[in-house]
């Protein structure tokens, strides 16, 4: 048994659509512009039909062809006239409503046959039927109507899981953008019924907005600027004052929203054309002076409604709020004051009717739909029937998409951009069409072309039109190898981080933001090294070709550079692979520039010896391990390399200082070759080890997942969605970096688990007092015990950290992973991380 599941609020000012699924309602977002609320405005211009925000924008340029508030006329014979070029055509409120409904149905993918549409409680049979008609015209096969106040009550009842034991009376207070409605609702376990309702179709939030500008903001500005005629000029809306009116509307709205949250707000007015640049404070009281009279009008309706039905406020269990204007605190407060009932705003008042309609739709079964033969055979266009042409790569901010259909065809098309930032609306065409589309700069833009037949049924949908802006330099050279920068690890070694990837198209530029891992004091021998190499990311730095080498030493800098200072490194590589490095240190505003060209590569003897030393240390370790594991063949391979490196070192040391000889290039090459061999031997095994570590860390997280906060789950997801990328990289440092990130997430998750701190506290508690430095250790033990008994884990945590800090250095266990974080392990070779 299928249910309708889709509910639509077709409002006077705004409309929306929601879907019921698995017990919950989701208010759908417009794929164009990603908003939940669609203004009920339709405009016609040059054959283009636009619905929503963009239609509303045309109030000034195209006022006679922009239509809104047509809900007020639905069911009457008062039609509208659309003037296009030399012709005028008549359009009915039903037609206009159908366009809005059709636009909303675009938010759906499939389920377009049955829908629930809401109507005001005051609608009569003719108005109701006209609304149904609009639904059919929009392409829905089945339309079920629901009264708005009932929808609102359903939303509240369902979302707040209110249990109705006996009968109750609720009051719906619906204060929207353009209209006010109030309804008296009878509710019991089985049914919801409108007893009576009252309202005013011409009283809404927009009246409050205009009064706020006219009676509060402008008088204040007149006072400040001394311009007494300010409002008069604005009212005439001429010239620059018209622009000022729109500007005031915008800031007025922002301040109004702010005053819903705070008692006072600062209004900043910055309008150069009238030389107004000022700010002043506005209080909620100021806003309330214009809200009060409007509110009193609504109060009159409520009181009349109640008295005409012999009901008093004490009979009203709950007042529920609908419509954006009810965000204003004054209204809520006044309602509470006069009614002494619960004034409920737990459901978002701007989407309450949509939500209620969707709940209703979720419980309402679909009428059996008879699929007509015509439906099954609706002619569709195939990919090959439509020829599309466009530039897939461009540097222009606008591009042309043109298309042509093979045979004689008359219909409509619509081109939109997948992120929601571009939409042509429906446009009529015959056989071929074209449109200039705007692109997001420096990004891949994905467009969608839909084609409709003359009856506005969709017959073609292609969402694969990709146009990339500025991302490719089509006539560039390829980079043959990675370009990397050498950075410090935490353990006295260095690694390579990729700056430019192999096969990227030259020229390339990138800015790196790094920090110093050690201090450099002026005039000392401290130094940091910036080393750029060409080779494979993730391999041993010494195995690669150094193409750019810069030293920042105490002797060359002007002021001390402290550990932790930021450094900006801009790296540029031109088409002929010339390297240009620009260093900037914000703290001292020092700038250093260097250029490097392959032809004049420099080799630093000290660096060669350093690299050999690093390799020898590694070899010693490897040989020991292989011997222990009795892998004598492997051990022999390592020993060979060790021997050759040792010979190379001797040669290098002899040449040290003799910078002019060409030998050093040969030595450098030999060193790179040997280190490359060493790297290959060790890398596969190291990569395997870090991959295993990653698996273990993942398992750890999953086992503790229930303690993870949404933020931590998000961080975990960010790491795991990039899994494929770094697991296949064969780059042990990259994988290790991911592991470190995941490890810190796991630690934080463990910290959310109260048992963890209890365990740690107990292990600290039972360590002998002699292992602690002096201090009030006993007191802390006592406090900790108390907190455990009270199950106060929040307070236990800082006790644990303090106790750990009081342990003598030698007893700080390095087995406990999280304690490792508490320690500061610092080894810096390059000076950068």
């Amino acid at each position, binding site marked *: 048994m299928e249910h309708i599941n889709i509910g639509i609020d077709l409002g006077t000012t705004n409309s929306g659509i929601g879907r019921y699924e698995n017990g919950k309602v989701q208010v759908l977002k417009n794929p164009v512009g990603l908003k939940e609320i669609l203004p009920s405005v339709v405009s016609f211009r040059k054959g283009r039909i636009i619905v929503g*925000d963009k239609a509303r*924008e045309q109030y*000034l340029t195209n006022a006679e062809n922009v239509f809104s508030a047509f809900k007020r006329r639905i069911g009457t014979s008062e039609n509208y006239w659309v003037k296009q070029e030399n012709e005028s055509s008549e359009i009915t409120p039903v037609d206009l409503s159908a366009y809005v409904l059709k636009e909303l149905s675009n938010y759906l993918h499939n389920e377009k046959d049955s829908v629930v549409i809401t109507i005001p409680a005051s609608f009569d049979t003719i108005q109701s039927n006209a609304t149904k008609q609009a639904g059919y015209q929009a392409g829905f096969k089945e339309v079920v109507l629901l009264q708005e106040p009932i929808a609102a009550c359903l939303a509240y009842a369902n979302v707040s899981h209110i249990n109705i034991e006996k009968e109750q009376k609720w009051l719906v207070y619906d204060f929207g953008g353009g209209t006010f409605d109030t309804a008296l609702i009878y509710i019991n376990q089985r049914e919801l019924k409108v007893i009576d309702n009252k309202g005013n179709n011409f009283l809404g939030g927009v009246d409050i907005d205009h009064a706020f500008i006219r009676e509060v903001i402008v008088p204040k500005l007149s006072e400040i600027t001394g311009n007494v005629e300010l409002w008069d000029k604005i009212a005439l809306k001429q010239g620059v004052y*018209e622009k000022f009116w729109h*500007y005031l509307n915008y800031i007025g709205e922002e301040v109004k929203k702010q005053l819903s949250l705070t008692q006072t707000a600062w209004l900043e007015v910055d309008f150069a054309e009238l030389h107004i640049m000022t700010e002043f404070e506005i209080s909620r009281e100021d806003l309330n002076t214009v809200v009060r009279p409007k509110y009193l009008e609504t109060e009159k309706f409520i009181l009349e409604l109640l008295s005409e039905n012999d009901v008093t406020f004490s009979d009203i269990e709950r007042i529920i709020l609908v419509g954006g204007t009810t965000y204003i605190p004054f209204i809520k407060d006044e309602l509470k004051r006069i009614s002494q009932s619960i004034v409920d705003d737990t459901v978002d008042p701007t989407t309450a009717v949509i939500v209620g309609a969707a709940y209703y739709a979720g419980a309402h079964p679909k009428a059996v739909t008879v699929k007509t033969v015509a439906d099954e055979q609706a002619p569709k266009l195939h990919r090959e029937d439509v020829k599309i042409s466009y530039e897939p790569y461009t540097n222009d901010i606008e591009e042309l998409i043109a298309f042509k259909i093979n045979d004689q065809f008359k219909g409509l098309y619509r081109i939109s951009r997948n992120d929601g*930032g*571009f939409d042509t*609306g429906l446009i009529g065409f015959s056989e071929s069409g074209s449109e200039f589309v705007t692109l997001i700069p420096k990004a891949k833009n994905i467009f969608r072309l839909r084609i409709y037949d003359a009856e506005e049924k969709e017959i073609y949908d292609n969402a694969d039109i990709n146009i990339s802006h500025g991302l490719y330099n089509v006539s560039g050279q390829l980079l043959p190898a990675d370009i990397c920068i050498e950075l410090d690890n935490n353990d006295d070694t260095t690694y390579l981080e990729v700056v430019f990837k192999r096969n990227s198209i030259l020229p390339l530029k990138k800015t790196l933001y790094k920090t110093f891992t050690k201090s450099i004091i002026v005039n000392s021998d401290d130094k940091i090294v910036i080393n750029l190499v060409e080779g494979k990311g993730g391999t041993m730095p010494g195995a690669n070709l150094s193409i750019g080498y810069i030293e920042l030493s105490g002797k060359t800098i002007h002021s001390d550079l402290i550990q932790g200072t930021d450094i900006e490194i801009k790296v540029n590589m031109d088409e002929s692979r010339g390297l240009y490095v620009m260093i900037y240190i914000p703290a001292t505003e020092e700038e250093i520039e260097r250029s490097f060209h392959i032809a004049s590569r420099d080799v630093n003897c000290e660096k060669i010896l350093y690299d050999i030393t690093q390799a020898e240390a590694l070899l010693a370790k490897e040989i020991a391990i292989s011997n222990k594991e009795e892998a004598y063949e492997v051990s022999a391979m390592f020993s060979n390399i060790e021997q050759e490196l040792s010979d190379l070192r001797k040669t290098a040391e002899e040449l040290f200082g003799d910078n002019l000889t060409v030998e050093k290039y040969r030595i450098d090459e030999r060193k790179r070759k040997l280190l490359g061999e060493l790297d290959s031997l060790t890398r596969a095994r190291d990569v395997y080890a870090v991959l295993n570590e990653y698996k273990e860390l993942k398992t750890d997280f999953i086992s503790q997942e229930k303690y993870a906060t949404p933020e931590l789950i998000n961080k975990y997801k960010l790491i795991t969605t990039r899994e494929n990328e770094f697991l296949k990289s064969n780059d042990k440092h990259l994988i290790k970096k991911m592991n470190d990130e995941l490890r810190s997430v796991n630690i934080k998750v463990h910290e959310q688990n109260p048992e963890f701190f209890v365990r740690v506290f107990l292990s600290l508690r039972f360590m002998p007092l002699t292992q602690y430095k002096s201090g009030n250790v006993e007191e802390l033990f006592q406090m900790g015990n108390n907190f455990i008994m009270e199950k106060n884990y929040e307070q236990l945590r800082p006790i644990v950290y303090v106790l750990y800090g009081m342990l003598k250095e030698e007893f700080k266990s390095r087995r406990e992973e999280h304690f490792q974080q508490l320690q500061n392990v610092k080894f810096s070779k390059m000076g950068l991380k």
Partner: protein
Amino acid sequence: MEMVAIINQVFDIEQKLGAKGETFAERNFTRIYHELDAMGYYIVDPSNRAYHETDTDIEATLSGNLSGQLKVTRVLKPIIYQKVPGGEMALIQKGIVIIEGK
């Protein structure tokens, strides 16, 4: 969306400094936008862009002299996209602009 609120404030500060011709904070803004990009936010300033009614990435108020070439003369809030895993973009804030004819 707290990040959107922060981005709006950053943009506002940049505009105010730009209006006064102050360039001392340019590097800071480059760094901020770099970090925002790493977080997946992409900000576009549509100043001086030609106006098309098909541009649904902005909420425009048309004002003043509307003859001639229409373009964006003032940006009150920038356009903000968010990169979704998979490389695609989603619009999360429409730019709020004023359009005038020149």
